[in-house]
């Protein structure tokens, strides 16, 4: 019972009685003839770190700008904390935004930038001073408070932008590609800082990003967007392990996809014959797909094992090919294996064993066998 409670608390979207904090109902945004966002519905709960993920032009930024109030929906409505936002201008919304370009005021020093929002609220000077000092302490910029934005590094500017948005204690913090402008190392560090801050303050974060890795590490839930619509909404695990369709499977991480037809549909398993793989797939889950239906069997590269001997027990769930390329990444190696019919299969193997004499067991031009567990593949119908 307590375990279940904890689960509901961590995942409020599972609780049918939970009141969503942000409600997006049938929202459409058109620019002339171009439909940027097309009739989307979404519920985001208090304390979530929600990611809108998609390629450029998918409508994720437009949706974020509608939450901030910079764009008005062509149709539909947005509620934040139970209040219809409708025509509420940006300066009266209980949200703050961290801009992709940070949009720091170049003529003000760090302290004034952070204090800007508080001054607009007519808070007295002493309190502003205290809250700004506290916020600068949190983002570790106390020593830089008298610097102008152009005297700061990219990472420091990002922290000023974060402090400036958070100091107003918004109900929702909107972040537009918060880490895009940082180099890889700084990005990783900042990612965890963001999560820490979000956890500590309990503010609801809505993050827009095109970087699937960033979305995976940061978020409680992800909405994958494509041409103005959500293609799947779910936790990072759901999105990665149980993609709804080929677009999501392909967009998140890499995946090997084999087209085929269902040949057998049992209560606890299905069989798929794939001409593309020239093989038979056995999946140990019952799925309500009619025999003869065209499907795609998708297997993630890390779920495939590579061996030099053929699996002896069965002629299902294995493929044979030749190693065409090896990408050695240190912790991992990726193999591109060409099947006899020419199809390329990507395999990722974690390098658990140190190779003897610097030579890996599987090498270029080696004849290899690929196999996987019957539970690993995903069967997609669209």
């Amino acid at each position, binding site marked *: 019972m307590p375990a279940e409670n904890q689960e509901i608390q961590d995942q409020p979207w599972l609780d049918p009685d939970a009141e969503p904090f942000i409600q997006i109902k049938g929202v459409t945004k058109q620019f002339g003839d171009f439909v940027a966002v097309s009739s989307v519905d979404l519920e985001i709960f208090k304390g979530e770190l929600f990611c809108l993920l998609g390629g450029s032009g998918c409508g994720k930024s437009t949706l974020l700008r509608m939450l901030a109030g910079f764009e008005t929906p062509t149709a539909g409505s947005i509620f934040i904390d139970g209040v219809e936002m409708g025509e509420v201008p*940006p*300066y009266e919304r209980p*949200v*703050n935004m961290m*801009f992709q370009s940070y*949009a720091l005021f170049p003529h003000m020093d760090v302290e004034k930038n952070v204090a800007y929002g508080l001054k*607009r609220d007519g808070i007295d000077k002493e309190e502003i001073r205290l809250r700004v000092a506290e916020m600068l302490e949190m983002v570790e910029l106390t020593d830089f408070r008298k610097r102008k934005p152009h005297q700061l590094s990219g990472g420091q500017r990002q922290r000023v932008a974060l402090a400036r*948005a958070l100091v107003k204690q918004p109900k929702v913090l909107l972040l537009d590609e918060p880490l895009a402008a940082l180099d890889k190392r700084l990005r990783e560090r900042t990612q965890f800082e963001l999560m820490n801050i979000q956890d500590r303050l309990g503010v609801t974060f809505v993050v827009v990003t095109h970087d699937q890795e960033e979305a995976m590490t940061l978020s409680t839930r992800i909405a994958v967007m494509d041409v103005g619509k959500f293609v799947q909404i779910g936790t990072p695990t759901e999105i990665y392990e149980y993609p709804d369709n080929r677009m999501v499977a392909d967009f998140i991480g890499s995946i090997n996809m084999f087209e085929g037809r269902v040949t057998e549909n049992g209560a606890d398993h299905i069989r798929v014959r794939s001409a593309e793989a020239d093989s038979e797939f056995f999946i140990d889950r019952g799925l309500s797909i009619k025999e003869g239906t065209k499907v795609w069997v998708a297997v993630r590269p890390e779920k495939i094992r590579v061996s030099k001997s053929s699996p002896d027990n069965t002629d299902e769930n294995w493929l044979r090919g030749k190693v065409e390329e090896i990408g050695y990444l240190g912790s991992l190696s990726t193999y591109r294996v060409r099947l006899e019919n020419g199809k390329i299969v990507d395999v990722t193997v974690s390098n658990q064993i140190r190779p003897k004499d610097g030579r890996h067991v599987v090498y270029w031009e080696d004849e290899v066998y690929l196999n996987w567990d019957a539970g690993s593949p995903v069967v997609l119908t669209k």
Partner: protein
Amino acid sequence: MAPLTKALDSGEGLGSYQQILVRVQHLLQAKWKTVLVVLPFFWLLLFFLAPFFIILKISVAEPLIASPPFSPLFEWTKDGAMTIRIIFDNYAYLWEDELYANTYISSLKISVISTLLCLLIGYPMAYAIVRASPTAKNILLLMVILPFWTSFLLRVYAWMGLLADQGLINDLLIWLGFIDSPVRLMYSHFAVYVGIVYTYVPFMILPLYANMEKLDLTLHEAAADLGAKPATTFLTVTLPMTWPGIAAGSLLVFIPATGEFIIPDLLGGGNVSMIGRVLFNEFHANHDWPVASAVAIALLILLVVPMMLYQRVQAKETEGS
């Protein structure tokens, strides 16, 4: 094999020969660059400094009824010694006669008010141009520059036609029934303000436009997001960030407007006293070149202060970006 051919064969000699060629080329290029930079500067220096020193020399001379109508700076006495005669009477005269001080003040007042009017008109115009669509932007900018395609003098004469008692504006007002008899528009401060503002407003718009073009519009969104109403955003973000443009435009209007001669002469007549007219009268009507030169030098000194301010603002701006 001779060493030279050997070197040529191996390509070494050829290499160094080419290197020399390249070096000579560079040297020539560098020289040309220097020439290209120095020449215009020399030109400006010659044709700014030479007249300046001539005027300065005349301003410390004595008026004579002769040709030229002033005493020479150097004179040879009978025993062959050279004397230099510098008198400050002309400057003292400017100081003593209230006419000059009053005219300077009047000129400054007219150019300050004109500058403010230009700013008031030009600022929203520049802002609108920056915000316009790319096609509209080009057309609007062209319209700002278009007046320069006609002679300045012609445009002032056109204004005389518009503002005259039997002019277009009066005719229109009578025809519309707002007035019964013509209103005096010409030869007034009003006419001078109209002329100066009309002439100089492009000089305000263009630097403002150049400055505003660089303005990042997401800063406005950021201000709104942080709770600033549009008016507050303007005062706390737009205005401080366009300050360099305001300064540049204002000085480009203020400096030439102060010394303006044609507009007060043609549109203001005898009713508007500006230093340009006084200067013209001293030269032509009074034929008193030394006093006229002193008036010019005094005006220059009066304008050097704002020019230096402008330089400082510019230096600051380049430093900031």
